[in-house]
């Protein structure tokens, strides 16, 4: 049964939600003009959609999702590399979200349907376990995700993994992507709700420079519905006061310095390099590549990967995932949404992952006027 303890969970308390909602109304009245804020995490979008929070937001306050879905921003050639390895007889292990993401010609799901050995795992260590259990096979972990999953991948690599285990890194680092979005001329964001998961590793202090450089407020927020409303309230306070401040609205998980050990391990194993984020832009220092010391575990070094790059589906040219992830459009602004593009037949990556805006809108009924 849903117990009272569940219903009264303080992060979901309806009375507090109502107070926060009223506060948002007051702040918007004070500000007197439309405000656009951006969150940079699919889990924020999940919380907003799942709990119907957009139905509570005052008129004029728009909460947009930025490039906060690691699956969505994984570039097509990276998917092609994973597919090529799978087709070449390697065991490819990856997160469930990556399974259906279309490459230029095919997805891992397509490769599996043709007999390739593709496994869905929950963690890098599970992928390493598969390697340990199958010493005769080459097991490649197609590693995606931001700091939250990059740190565990690094931990596995630094802990003497099996010789037949390697990593195809598509890990990405969030802060540089926020800079790119902040610089986009036609994206007028008044504040960022930063991702609590990633900040758990890197610490909120990381954003001080960003706030100063771009003169824009940043609030680190958690993923319970009240966390989101509280984060929005703090952001609107900064906007009302015309201040570019930094605040941690998720102190139960995030500290100023973060998880130092995890962060150190991550930077011991990875270094940043420039790379294309799907649909958005080439972003400097935002891809996490394995350092030379880990070349033996780097699938790109170890195997001569020759992706079978196919002709892109003409539909992908109509896909506006890039605009959606840059905060310029909503999913239902895409002609393909819910018709040609569905979770079962995704055209763009945003429709694949449970962290993707289009998938979330599809799953939770979009932004109805309720």
């Amino acid at each position, binding site marked *: 049964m849903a117990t009272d303890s569940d219903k009264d969970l303080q992060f979901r308390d309806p009375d507090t939600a109502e107070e926060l909602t009223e506060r948002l109304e007051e702040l918007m009245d004070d500000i007197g003009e439309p405000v656009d804020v951006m969150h940079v995490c699919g889990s924020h979008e999940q919380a907003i959609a799942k709990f119907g929070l957009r139905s509570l937001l005052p008129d004029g306050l728009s909460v947009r999702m930025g490039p906060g879905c690691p699956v969505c921003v994984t570039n097509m050639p990276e998917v092609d590399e994973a597919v090529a390895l799978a087709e070449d007889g390697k065991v490819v292990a990856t997160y469930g979200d990556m399974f259906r993401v279309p490459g230029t010609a095919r997805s891992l799901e397509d490769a599996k349907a043709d007999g390739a050995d593709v496994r*869905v795992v*929950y963690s890098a260590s599970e992928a390493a376990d598969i390697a340990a259990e199958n010493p005769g096979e080459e097991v490649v972990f197609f590693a995606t995700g931001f700091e939250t999953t990059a740190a565990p991948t690094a931990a596995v690599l630094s802990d003497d993994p099996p010789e037949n285990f390697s990593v195809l890194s598509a890990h990405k680092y969030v802060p540089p992507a926020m800079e790119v979005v902040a610089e986009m001329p036609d994206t007028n964001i008044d504040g960022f709700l930063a991702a609590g998961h990633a900040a758990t590793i890197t610490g909120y202090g990381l954003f001080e420079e960003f706030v100063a450089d771009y003169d824009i407020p940043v609030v680190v927020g958690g993923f319970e519905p009240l966390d989101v409303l509280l984060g929005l309230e703090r952001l609107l306070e900064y906007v009302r006061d015309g201040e570019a401040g930094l605040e941690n609205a998720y102190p139960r998980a995030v500290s100023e310095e973060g998880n130092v050990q995890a962060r150190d391990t991550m930077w011991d194993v990875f270094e940043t390099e420039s790379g294309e984020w799907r649909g958005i832009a080439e972003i400097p220092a935002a891809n996490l590549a394995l350092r030379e010391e880990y070349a033996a575990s780097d699938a790109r070094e170890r195997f001569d990967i020759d992706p079978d790059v196919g002709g892109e589906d003409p539909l992908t040219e109509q896909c506006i995932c890039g605009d959606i992830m840059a905060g310029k459009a909503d999913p239902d602004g895409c002609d393909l949404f819910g018709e040609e593009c569905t979770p079962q037949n995704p055209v763009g990556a945003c429709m694949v992952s449970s962290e993707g805006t289009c998938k979330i809108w599809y799953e939770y009924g979009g932004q109805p006027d309720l």
Partner: protein
Amino acid sequence: MSETEDADGTEASGEVVTTAHGSGGGQMRSLIGDLVLSRFEDAGDVGLHDLDDGAVLPVDDDQSLVVTTDSHVVKPPVFPGGDIGRLAVAGTVNDLAVMGATEPLALSCSLVVEEGVEMDFLDTVLASARATCEEAGCSVVTGDTKVMGSGDVDRLVVNTTGVGLVPRGHHVADAGLSPGDAIVVSGTLGDHGIALLSEREGFDFEGDLESDVAPVNDLVAAALDAGEVTAMKDPTRGGFATSINEMVGKADVGAEIDERSVPVADSVAAAGEVLGIEPFDVANEGKVVFGVAPEDAEDVLAALQDQPLGADAAIVGEATADHPGRVVLDTGLGRRYLTEPEGEQLPRIC
């Protein structure tokens, strides 16, 4: 005939069936609509085109025969709280029950067995099927057995067909909701689907995650005795979300559901959050969703709660004239649409 034509002269599309076509959502409906329904005429009071839980065929002025059939495959075939034998019997008994036939006359049972399957496993499954028949007050009266080569079928497929009687004109369709009807569920939702997904993914969650698989004919009989049930469905594949959407879609009404009043076991809610799977989106095998005339809602609820399988029954919302064809979910914080899940549920990244 060109190479791109099928034997009947229609053009071959090149499309193939995928697991998504079996998931109970829109793709499955289009498969059935395109390939099956177009080929068969309706008969009786409720027929194939109604896509209800069973067909209702008049026998004479007083009685109608209810017929339903299901093929059961489940991975793993023995799971926490049940097995494929219990599932096959309960599934068919329940499909009869939600049409109003709460005293099943008889079942057929066909087995398609993979070569190499252990006799002990079959013994367990059939003993379980028999015990479930006794619970439901019916028996298997005919059947068939086929053995397929190794790899040609995944261990075991069980097909069951059931027949039962209802007083003529007193069957309950799933399309009978009217604005104002109370939506009642007979107990906690998501138990079967979350238990199976957890087992399949190798998660060892604390707490008791067990399938709810059970015959619900007595439970349904109690509800029918207590008041006017306008619509019924057992929320199996696709879960509560799919069933309630189908019910409002067929009746062209809306529904407003209060999420806080929907019973979900703590262990199921917690496991669902970890797996990234909504308990509303996964199968139940011992639950019923009722539409009930508003004046009878409390009586039906009380009758359900008196039954062993209905202790957690709850009124969870009502049918509305607003938003026809759509289900609005009040989350206790905000409001959104409750949509049908699409396709196979996959675990998420973080």
